[in-house]
């Protein structure tokens, strides 16, 4: 098990009322599943309150990095103590 930090950025933090929280997990897949379980329904509810109905889990409309590496580029499921899982809304600037 590794202790990591999950950090919600930008709108996600605002809508969820949580910027970051600690999470103990045996692997990346489990960590993502727990983020979805704990925050997915609430985030979709907050978005729906603002007129946006989304299907699918948080991963589908977020850009997620483990430290600075994107999910797609991660070679394995391993986590280490002190890792930070960043969850960004998939929006860009002007």
């Amino acid at each position, binding site marked *: 098990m590794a202790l990591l930090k999950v950090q919600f950025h930008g*709108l996600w933090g605002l809508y969820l009322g949580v910027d970051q929280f600690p999470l103990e997990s045996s692997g990346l897949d489990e960590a993502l599943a727990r983020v979805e379980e704990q925050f997915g329904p609430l985030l979709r509810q907050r978005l729906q309150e603002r*007129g946006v109905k989304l299907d699918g889990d948080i991963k589908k409309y977020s850009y997620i990095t483990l430290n600075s590496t994107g999910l797609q580029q991660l070679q394995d499921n391993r986590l280490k103590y002190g890792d930070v899982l960043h969850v960004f809304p*998939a*929006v*860009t*600037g002007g």
Partner: protein
Amino acid sequence: MLGYQGKILHVDLGSGEIKAIPLNEDDAKKYIGGTGLSARLIYGSVKPGMDPLAPSNPLVFAAGPFTGTSIPMVSRSSVSGISPYTGIWGEATTGGTFPFGLKNSGYDAVYIVGKAKKPVYLFINDNKAEIREASHLWGKDTYATQGILKEELKGLRHYVSCIGRAGENLVPYACIINDKGRAAGRCGLGALMGSKKLKAVVVAGKSEASLADKDRISVLAGQFREIITNNFMSLAFREYGTMLYVDMGMYLADTPAKYFTKSVFPAEKITGQALKQAYSVKNYACHGCPIGCGRVVKGFKKSIPEVDGPEYETAGAFGSLCMNFDLDSIIMANHICNAQGIDTISAGVSIAYAMHLFEKGILTEKKAGMPIKWGDSKTIVKLVEMIINRKGIGELLGKGTRAMAKELGSDPEEAAQVKGLEIPMHDARAFYGEAISYATGPRGACHQKGDYYSMELGGMVLELNVIAGDRFMNEGKGEMAAKFQGFKDLFDSLCMCKMSPLSLTQITDALNAVTGWNYSPLDLYACGERSLNIKRAINNKLGVTRQDDRMPRIAVEALKEGASAGRSPDMDMLLKDYYSFMKWDWGTGKPTKEKLFELGMHDVAADLWK
């Protein structure tokens, strides 16, 4: 021609001649409108060694086939010409209501040459145009100009695009402003307008273009509106504007700081959330847009009751890049740029460069006439005014980073520009696709033509197999970036907002409904490629070669901090891959004959390879 007015207004400000020329249907089908069509119109006037400020250099305002229709997010128009700032192809696009007015005045484009003897404005109303006296407007800022014209034309619904004092003063990166504070910002086309003594273009009229299939357009418009409204990105922009990206940009190392030498900074001080908390902020939406990403700061100062903006790029340029986290000064600098008409990106980068050079002792207090220190918000505002008035050190900063490096004898690899245009607020080390887009963009470093960061963060183009991958990967990224550039160039020809989440297939459906054409998505994509290639051919004629397709060291050498620490794009690999896909000649940097033939650009091939 359905979807078009079918004619272009030609105006010679020198002779006073005004005439309408039929729009060539083949040109419309190949280049669509906006910047693509403008490049086609301008191509014949491009001569090696030409003076961009010569009266013969055309300035072209253009709309697109969607402009004026009910398709959402299409109130955009373009301004193009050979840039007096960079000396190569120049283009800028804008939103608001002016684009809608331009199309409904009865023309697809307005092609302006010559130089008036005294200040004038061009008045176009329902298929008629006249050149009017504007001496009373000369010297006025853009807000006053729009206000005076509003009063003079009371009773007539009209739309104004104009320059401020910067354009009159021929500040090389002067811009053009419409709808209070919407800017056709880059490439110094405001200086080109000023060189013609043209203070404003005023459009009015109700000449709607005929459309091929109104029922289909109505159905598609409804569907698109729902897609856009139900997109959480729309929600995000509606609530916080483009500045919401500042903190995310910082975490991704995409928002540059301290003149491209840092990526970590107190982002929370200059985000959209911070703006919303500290000021009374209202939304601004372009004509027919369901999002409203624009910001208007209300009650800013007693003397400035309203400020249009700032947007993300401006917050970065006057903020993190200058290590300035004082929102008040960012808003003030933004307002002055709007009021007097200069590009906030080139201005902010030039000021940050001055700070960088001051710290290194290359720009001294004696030379500058003042200390120019990191984060000095008062100095930033003062320098913006000096640039506009071409006073003191402002004269040099107004020439931009390339000229600053040359005149001050500093390392040209520290001038953050490509082909003379300053690098915007997306860091090439954070997304390698962005690096190659900047290096090869038709107007120089441009985040609009190849906003690769937006693709990596979810804006994929499935029809072209452009999909998100490892943002730090070099292999194959040149080809992906080239495809994405062609796709995004289309938006400037169609005159669509780049925030639109519509797919290439959906856009093609809409174009077919508007024009009656039977394009496939790949047919339409070829128009984007054609646009890129004619702009490249123009640049080749003006002396651009492969050696110009490069990034300065300051913008690509690895940083020591942040999410991109230790990483640097492999520009050689990226460029080879890009050239290979584009079929550009490695020796000369020109599009090959083969490529030009493939795109049906036989006349360009004959001219470029004669």
